[in-house]
C-alpha cells in the first residue's frame, strides 16, 4: 500500500495538512467543564470536575491540587472490541496526560484538592492522545480552572519516508514513525513528547517543527470554540 502518491496522502491531504477538526465547548450538562471534539475519524468527549476535596485523604497534596486524568477508550471505538477498563496503554496515556496538564494549571491555588479530567475516546482513528489532551484543555478552560495557558497537542510523523503532519489510522499502522507533541502555545514549551519508529535527527527536527505548526493551528480552533460558547452565553 502506497501511503503517499503524487505528493498526496491516502485521504488526499498534503503532507503538512491537518485533518478536519470540530471543537465544541461545554456540551455536557453535569460536568463542571466539557468539550466535544471531532478530529478526522476521532470523536472525543472530555469532562472536568473540580477542584474538589481529594478523597481518600492519603491522595491529597498539602501544597497543590492533584490532577487525576483518566483516558479511556470506549469498547466500540476500535475495530476489534476493546474489553472495558484500563489497559496498560491507557494507563500510560492517562499518566503523561495528567503530567502535561498539570504543567499549566495553577495547582498551588487549590491545596488538598483534586481536579478530575475524564477523556473518553468514542471513535478512534489514530492521534487519540493528542485529541484527548486538546479536548481536555478546552474542558478545563470551560470549567474555569485557572491555567497559565491552554495546552494543545498534535502529532507529526513519517510515512513512506516523508515527514507529515497528523497521521490517520492507516498511516500510523504502516508508517515509519509517530511523534505526538503537546505544548503550552504561548511559550511553545513542550509538555508532552513521545516518539516511536525511525527518524534521523534531521527528520526529527522537521517533524517537530511540523507538529508545532499543527499545534498553533489547533490552538486557534480551541480559542474559537471557547469564544463561541461565551458569546452564546452573552446572547442568551
Amino acid at each position, binding site marked *: 500500500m502506497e501511503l503517499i502518491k503524487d505528493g498526496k496522502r491516502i485521504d488526499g491531504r498534503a503532507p503538512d495538512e491537518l485533518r478536519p477538526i470540530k471543537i465544541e465547548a461545554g456540551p455536557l*450538562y453535569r460536568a463542571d467543564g466539557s468539550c466535544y471534539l471531532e478530529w478526522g475519524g476521532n470523536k472525543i468527549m472530555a469532562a472536568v470536575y473540580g477542584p474538589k476535596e481529594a478523597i481518600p485523604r492519603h491522595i491529597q497534596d498539602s501544597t497543590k491540587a492533584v490532577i487525576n486524568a*483518566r483516558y479511556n477508550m470506549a469498547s*466500540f*471505538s476500535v475495530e*476489534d*472490541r476493546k474489553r472495558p477498563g484500563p489497559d496498560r496503554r491507557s494507563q500510560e496515556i492517562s499518566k503523561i496526560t495528567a503530567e502535561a496538564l498539570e504543567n499549566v494549571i495553577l495547582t498551588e491555588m487549590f491545596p488538598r484538592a483534586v481536579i478530575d479530567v475524564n477523556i*473518553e475516546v*468514542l471513535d478512534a482513528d489514530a492521534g487519540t492522545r493528542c485529541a484527548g489532551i486538546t479536548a481536555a484543555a478546552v474542558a478545563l478552560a470551560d470549567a474555569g480552572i485557572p491555567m497559565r495557558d491552554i495546552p494543545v497537542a498534535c502529532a507529526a510523523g513519517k510515512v513512506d519516508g516523508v515527514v507529515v503532519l497528523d497521521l490517520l489510522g492507516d498511516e500510523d499502522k504502516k508508517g515509519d514513525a509517530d511523534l505526538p507533541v503537546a505544548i503550552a502555545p504561548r511559550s511553545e514549551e513542550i509538555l508532552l513528547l513521545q516518539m516511536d519508529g525511525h527518524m534521523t535527527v534531521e527528520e526529527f527536527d522537521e517533524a517537530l517543527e511540523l507538529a508545532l505548526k499543527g499545534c498553533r493551528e489547533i490552538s486557534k480552533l480551541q480559542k474559537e470554540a471557547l469564544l463561541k460558547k461565551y458569546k452564546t452565553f452573552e446572547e442568551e
Partner: protein
Amino acid sequence: MGISSVKKDYLYRLAKEGKRPDGRAFNEYRPIKIERGVINMAEGSARVSIGHTTVLAGIKMDIGEPYPDTPEEGAMSTAVELIPLASPDFESGPPRADAIELSRVVDRGIRESKFIQLEKLCIEPGEKVWIVFIDIHVLDYDGNLFDACSLAASAALMNAKIPNERFEMGEDVPMPLSDPPVSCTFVKYNGAIVVDPSLDEDEAAEARHTIAVDKKGDIRAMQKGLSGSFTVEEIKNNINNARIISKDIRKILEG
C-alpha cells in the same frame, strides 16, 4: 450520591400538590432525542437523550463459540459503563452493584423480548456463532438511566449491520431483529409515583419500577428496585401507564 434534606423536603412538598420540580405532570416524559450511526468504528450506534441525560450505545460483533445449551444461537452481552465523565458520583474501577443491576435489567429487556433473533446469528452449529456486544456509555447523567440505556441499546441495534466484510464472509447485512422492547421507569417518593425521574427525583426515590413492554403491550421484563415498597395496586397502575407511555416512545424509536 445523596440529596440534601432541603431539596428533598421541596420535592416532597411539590409531590403533595401533584407537582414535579421541572413542572412536568406525574405521567409526563421528558423530550427524547435519538441520533443514529454516530460511531464509525461500531457495527451500529445511537446517542439518546432524555432531557439532559445522554447515553451512547455502540454495537460490536465478534465470532465465537456458542453456549453449550444453545448450540445454534448467537450470544449477546450487555454492559453499561457509568464512567466518571457523566457524573461526579460515578467512580472509575470495576462496575459496582448499581451498574450491574442496570446492565442486567437492560439486558433482560432485550433478551426476553427476543429482540435480537439469535437463532439467525449461527454460523456453524455448535462451532461458530456471532456474539453481539452491546456497550453503553453514560455521557451525562440527569436521571432515569434505565430507560435511556434501554432505548440507546435498541436504537443502536436497529442501526447495526453484521460485519461480514471485516471477517471476509461476504457483504454486510442488517442485524436480524424483531420488535424492540420499550422500557418505562417509575419512581415513588413521599407517596407520589412519577415516570421518567429527573436526577433529583432519582435521588429522592424510595422505590423504582421498570417495565419492558413489547409492541402488543405485553410485559417482557420488570424490575422493582430500592428499599421502598409498592402496593399491588400501584404495580398494576404502573404497568397500565407504561403500556400507554411506551407507545409514544416506540414511535420515536421506530421513526
